[in-house]
């Protein structure tokens, strides 16, 4: 039982990850895929951040007094990862606009049909 509570946090992240991942691989709409990708990535970010949490700790900005701090390293890593996520999203959106211009649709299936009919 105690494992359940100890790991509950992780399991929610895993659930989120799965939902995001499912959206990416099952949906045909290009924009929605990217949103799924974002959810997937955010879940991973949460996983990292939660492993840095220390019980009774506080944010790793040094204050006066005897305080315990949470682990700063995951925060640094995830800062970078968020930036990478934004960059990927921006690029993907630009690609989607171009695809829409070239094909007139942003549904994967329609695109496949158009390509196949060539």
């Amino acid at each position, binding site marked *: 039982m105690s494992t359940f509570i100890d790991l509950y946090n992780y399991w929610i992240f895993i659930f989120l990850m799965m939902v995001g991942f499912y959206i990416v691989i099952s949906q045909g709409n*290009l924009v929605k895929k990217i949103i799924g990708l974002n959810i997937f990535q955010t879940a991973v970010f949460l996983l990292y951040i939660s492993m840095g949490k220390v019980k009774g700790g506080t944010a790793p900005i040094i204050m006066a007094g005897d305080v315990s701090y949470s682990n700063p390293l995951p925060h640094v890593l995830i800062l970078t990862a968020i930036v990478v996520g934004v960059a990927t999203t921006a690029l993907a959106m630009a690609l989607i606009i171009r695809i829409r211009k070239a094909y007139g649709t942003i549904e994967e299936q329609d695109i496949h049909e158009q390509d196949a009919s060539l």
Partner: protein
Amino acid sequence: MISSHLPVLQVVLPLIAAPLCLLLRRSSLLWILSFAASLAAMIIAWLLLQQAGSSGVISYTIGGWAAPWGIEYRIDTLNAYVLLIVTSISTVVLLAAKKSIEQEIPQQHWPMFYSSYLLCLTGLLGITATGDAFNVFVFLEISSLSSYALISLGRDRRALTASYQYLVMGTIGATFILIGIGLLYMLTGTLNMHDLAQRLPAVAQSKTLLSAFAFLFVGISLKLALFPLHLWLPNAYTYSPSIVSAFLAGTATKVAVYVLLRFIFTVFGADYAFSVLPLTEILMLLAVAAIMFASISAIYQSNIKRLFAYSSVAQLGYIILGIGFLSVSGLTATLLHLFNHALMKAALFMALACVLYRQGDVMFSNVKGLGKTMPWTFMAIVLGGLSLVGVPLTVGFISKWYLVVAAIEQGHFVLVAIILFGSLLALVYVWRLVEQGYFHNSEEDHPRQEAPLSLLIPTWMLVLANIYLGIDTSLTIGAAEQAAQMLLGQAGGGSP
């Protein structure tokens, strides 16, 4: 003084050139700057290989912070070898790039194109040079993002969807890698690969470690286009501009293979990787499937770029097969083929760039009678193809030879048969090309119209390298064997 900073300069030099490219207005300077940066990187890689060969591991602490706290560059023979592959392919490709780019890419995009190209190079070099697991992820994303942009520049609209598909799969792969790295960090509290290697044996029993390994393996396999996760590769190589195809085919997947090797052998240790999971069987199964499936697919393609893209998937099968043997000759075969495949694919895609330059497309119909109209180009394609088949006196033969030796050593005679059968399949698709080129005449009577020399010479440089290194093997085999021994030496978990 400079020599001690080589590891970081290796990556930083092309990186500086990238924003400078954006600022340059004169297009002739653009090419000169890019080429110079790439050439300098190649020279540095060469020097690093010498240094690593003589003094073992070169460690460079960035920012002056000692290893597990700061980021460390750790160059050994393996890194340096891969760095040399990447930089030399990039340099030769750039040498040819000018004409092809002038034709395929609108002028307003040149600064950004060269910038992206250099960023891609930077990313690939950064992945290879670093000794920090998270740093791998960051540079992986640099190279990925820039390659999405490069691929999308293809003139066919399918380049866009290819790029999108690659983006989605690549990001999934990168996120899997991120999960894997996160789990490793969770177990050990460190991100430095060397430090990880020393701390992981203590937690070898952990289920978390196993799932970290699974995520890293799948994530890297996505980037590596290991069968059946290769779906992004054929489209990406087919529709991107020809220079980009040549560059990516020669470098991107090779670096991914390197990352796989690094994680399996250095971080997890061969003992762990091969004892906990039936990795030998998994790798061999996937490799055989890749060889068979992709080679057969290649035979049925009508677009020649696509044909060679499928052949790349098959060749990656050979590369992976070598890892599965877990022996010096197997790994040597892997590393040799890493180099050799980069050489032949870059040569082939550059020859295709020549064809594209004159014909505007690379369908089978464009090749008809090419043996007469573009004899040198077509000769390059044929020689590259023969190297792909593994005909003696080409580099392809050397790596296949080592692979067969490794298979025989361990008594896997079925695999020997499969390797030979794979070569046979390769012979079939290369023969289809030869037949079109020499024994069919083009419908229209094209005058003899060879590709411009600036494209042809770099192509032939690669073709000749294919042959020269197939005859004088001391250079590549030496480095490959050294690296393979080093990897297996680490298999015991000890430090080199």
